[in-house]
């Protein structure tokens, strides 16, 4: 029986696992306050790191969400790998359906979260946070104790290369899904056929 490997799925699966490993250490988006930095936000679906005055701040709920994202992406990547070596089985469609969506959802949720967070933070604080690029933020007077002082903060926001890599991985996953249509299914396995006849 012919058992071809789906190379695109294999690449998608490996790159998904690679993306997880990279994203733990390199953020998808970085927001730096001050020069030299006094505060920094490193954000990716698998790692949210907030450092203020050099002290990292860990929020347990966000840590748990990051862990959930790691497990979800890892499961997607592993299932894609399994699919890649069995792309023409009757159950392959389900494996593919499970695996290819994970990086895609991660990228989409990340972009939505990022936009929502910047809008929310801007609405609450009255400061327009940039999503990308450098700029200056004028701190509203009501946020400055004492008064008589105006404060302007230099900030830099930038998408880091893992974000673009994540888009590439999502692209591989979509390509895997599209390529699957061209893979002919093998004949139904005898055991399943038997069971179907019995039923």
């Amino acid at each position: 029986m012919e058992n071809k490997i789906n190379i695109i799925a294999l690449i998608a699966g490996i790159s998904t696992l690679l993306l997880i490993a990279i994203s733990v250490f390199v953020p998808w988006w970085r927001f730096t306050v001050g020069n030299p930095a006094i505060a920094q936000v490193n954000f990716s679906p698998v790692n949210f790191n907030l450092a203020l005055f050099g002290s990292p701040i860990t929020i347990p709920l966000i840590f748990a969400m990051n862990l959930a994202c790691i497990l979800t992406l890892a499961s997607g990547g592993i299932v894609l790998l399994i699919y890649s070596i069995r792309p023409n089985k009757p159950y392959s469609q389900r494996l593919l359906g499970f695996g290819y969506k994970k990086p895609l959802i991660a990228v989409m949720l990340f972009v939505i979260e990022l936009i929502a967070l910047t809008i929310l933070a801007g609405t609450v604080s009255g400061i327009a946070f940039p999503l990308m690029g450098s700029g200056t933020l004028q701190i509203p007077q009501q946020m400055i104790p004492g008064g008589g002082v105006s404060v302007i903060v230099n900030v830099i926001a930038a998408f880091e290369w893992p974000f673009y890599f994540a888009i590439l991985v999502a692209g591989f996953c979509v390509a895997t899904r599209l390529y699957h249509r061209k893979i002919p299914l093998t004949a139904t396995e005898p055991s399943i056929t038997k069971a179907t006849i019995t039923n």
Partner: protein
Amino acid sequence: MQTLSVVLLLISIGCIVGPIGGAVIMYRDNLSGLVVTPQINSIINGNNNNSQDNSNNNNNYNGNNNNYNNNYDTSTNDNGNNNNDNSGGGGGLISPTFVSAQINSQARTFTVTVNVTNNFSYDLTLNSINATVESSQDNYQLGTISSNTPVTILVGQTSLVTVSGTWTQDAENYINNNFAGATSINVNLANTTIDVNGIIVQQTQPINVGDVPLT
């Protein structure tokens, strides 16, 4: 096929519910701790600021500017005036205090050395200082000062920051007409802009830096 679907569904649910449920169970007695950690509480309560008594730091220079008197033309007159009792903007992000001034009458330039204390529990880099020097008597503009050499001030330490400036012929005439025979003039720094770690603090109210010697 059905079994596979169920297994994949359970994996999907387990991957999300497991970590989040685990965190909720761990913090079940203090659910707010899931988001508001002791570190965040500390920041909200302002514990990050370890303000110290400036009077204890006046002699605690970190040596960044120990050679400040040698950086200028030897023809300048050293009018060192250790006026450490003046505190300009005390209790702020950083506290500048006047230390001494040097005047070069021929070039109409001067240098002012200020003592800057880091009141935060974090090393700060003073990128620049710009200000207008005014007579505190009638806010007449005497000149401008600036310093664009970054100086790093360590936690709780005081560093000497030297700023240079110029004055105009008009300012000279003003002093000759209004302060004839006076040995010093009380001045303010107006429109003071301090860039610390890329955070630009603009003081809208004048900072009194005390008496600056004229001779």
